[in-house]
């Protein structure tokens, strides 16, 4: 009997674990280690953050789902990996620390034959003074990264609405809280929903909305922007995003590294080297991501963390990490199999794998401060990669160690993104986009780097309906209800 250990139960880890359990059956063991007791459909946290959904609607308990799937579920966080075993144990193992009530702080070593690292990111609020500290979110801003953060965001948002109803003008500042953030799309969707809710509450005229982000142009989204087919044109996402903001009277600051947050005020540095300050009454700023801080040790106990993980804490995989300057970047730099180059029985998927470099062209201020988005690895790519990795491992367990690995390069993969504005069936709209491929390939698609036959975007109720359907469809799939394998990632 072989044992697969999956670290993390988010979109990528959950997809990998559930497919592996299905394909391997009861002859082999799948273990999931995740510190959370609930699964969270993160894209819908946006609606929780404006009070349109409850926390319960975007989460469910993992234990009964894993029990049904025959997965050995351990509510714990991974501390370290011993890919060669130790002087006492010959097999590789991971050391975990329980977060389960009643067992908090207890540690255990779990031996494995194959390991998937799908831990996701550490929300690095501590990177910006005032945004938070090593323990999490600070007191001056809000976030929608977790379901609890989103609940808190809504509480603060509702207070602002009440103040506006009493005649007090409020300023909303939404975007990224550091020069190296990713997931601009989530903040983008949040500001659209805030604007929609303010209109609904009848207080839009009492609010000033401003976007602040580390993108070098609006609509970069960490993917170097995109050209989408619309109205017979290949339209830049810059025009698309600027148009959406102009229509909603949202102003913006871009190319900004937020370097300090105080009560009601952020300080920032721009790409031209100038410094600025912006006041706010309500601010949702996303933190940058790092790896979760897993350590790795060799058989003799020596620290090999730098061998297994990149300096940002994400696990090294089959990417080209020596591409160098932007001019040398190629689509082929991006990983295909997500296998660790040193230890062939370890894989990383979702946000946990170390990308070879950003997707957006790197930029920095004259002061040397890097200000550019880091690459997104969430949502659809995350699920597809998780499934491909599970497939590779299952083949190796069932067919032998030389079974070929499955590939899922972000340079040969598309993504569908739907950014809603509102939640009602008929009173909201959404920006629906597809992009192919996620990582631009300028050799295959000269000019835009992408296939404009499959890269498009439009605004309307239709995208809004799709967003609703995706919410229910993916929670249905994650709960492993009837037909879950038929729903694509």
């Amino acid at each position, binding site marked *: 009997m072989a044992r697969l250990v999956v670290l993390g139960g988010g979109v990528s880890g959950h997809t990998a674990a559930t497919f592996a359990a299905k394909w391997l059956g009861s002859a082999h063991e799948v273990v999931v280690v995740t510190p959370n007791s609930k699964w969270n459909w993160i894209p819908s946290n946006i609606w929780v953050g404006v009070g349109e959904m409850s926390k319960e609607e975007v989460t469910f308990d993992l234990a009964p789902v894993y029990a049904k799937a025959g997965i050995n579920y351990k509510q714990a966080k991974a501390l370290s990996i011993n890919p060669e075993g130790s002087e006492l144990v010959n097999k590789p193992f991971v050391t975990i620390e329980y977060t389960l009530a009643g067992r908090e702080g207890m540690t255990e070593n779990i031996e494995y034959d194959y390991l998937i690292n799908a831990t996701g990111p550490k929300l690095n609020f501590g990177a910006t003074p005032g945004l938070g500290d090593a323990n999490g979110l600070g007191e001056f801003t809000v976030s929608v990264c977790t379901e609890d953060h989103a609940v808190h965001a809504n509480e603060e948002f509702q207070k602002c609405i009440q103040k506006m109803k009493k005649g007090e003008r409020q300023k909303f500042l939404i975007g990224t809280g550091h020069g190296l953030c990713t997931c601009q799309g989530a903040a983008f969707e949040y500001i659209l929903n805030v604007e929609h809710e303010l209109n609904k509450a009848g207080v839009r005229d009492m609010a000033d909305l401003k976007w602040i982000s580390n993108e070098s142009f609006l609509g970069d989204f960490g993917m170097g922007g995109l050209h989408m087919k619309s109205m017979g044109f290949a339209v830049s996402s810059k025009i698309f995003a600027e148009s959406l903001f*102009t229509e909603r009277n949202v102003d913006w600051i871009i190319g900004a590294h937020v370097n300090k947050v105080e009560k009601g005020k952020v300080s920032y540095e721009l790409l031209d080297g100038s410094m600025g300050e912006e006041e706010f009454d309500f601010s949702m700023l996303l933190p940058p991501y790092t790896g979760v801080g897993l350590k790795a040790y060799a058989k003799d106990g020596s620290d090999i963390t730098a061998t297994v993980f990149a300096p940002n804490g994400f696990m090294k995989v089959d990417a080209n990490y020596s591409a160098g300057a932007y001019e040398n970047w190629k689509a082929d730099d991006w990983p295909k199999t997500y296998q660790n180059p040193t230890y062939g029985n370890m894989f990383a998927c979702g946000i946990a794998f170390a990308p070879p470099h950003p997707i957006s062209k790197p930029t920095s201020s004259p002061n040397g401060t890097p200000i550019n988005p880091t690459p997104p690895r969430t949502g659809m790519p995350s699920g597809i990669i998780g499934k491909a990795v599970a497939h590779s491992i299952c083949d190796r367990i069932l067919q032998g160690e030389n079974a070929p690995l499955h590939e899922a390069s972000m340079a040969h993969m*598309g993504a569908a993104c739907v950014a809603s504005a509102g939640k009602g069936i008929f009173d909201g709209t959404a920006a629906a986009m597809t992009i192919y491929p996620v990582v631009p390939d300028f050799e295959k698609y000269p000019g835009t780097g992408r296939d404009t036959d499959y890269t498009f975007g439009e605004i309307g109720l239709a995208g809004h309906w799709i967003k609703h359907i995706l919410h229910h469809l993916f929670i249905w799939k994650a709960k492993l209800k009837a037909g879950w394998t038929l729903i694509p990632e």
Partner: protein
Amino acid sequence: MSKKAEHNIKAYGNNFTTMTPGPFAIKLRTCKIWQFIRFIVINIKMLIVVRKSHI
């Protein structure tokens, strides 16, 4: 129908060079019949992208 979006443009401000939707484009976004057609079209396009991504 007003040209509300145009009124938000600030001369030589951040948004002076962008495009804004006219009344007809805004109407189409919430026209249920048109949006139902777009719903079918967008779903087909998304399914094609999903299929290409799983190969």
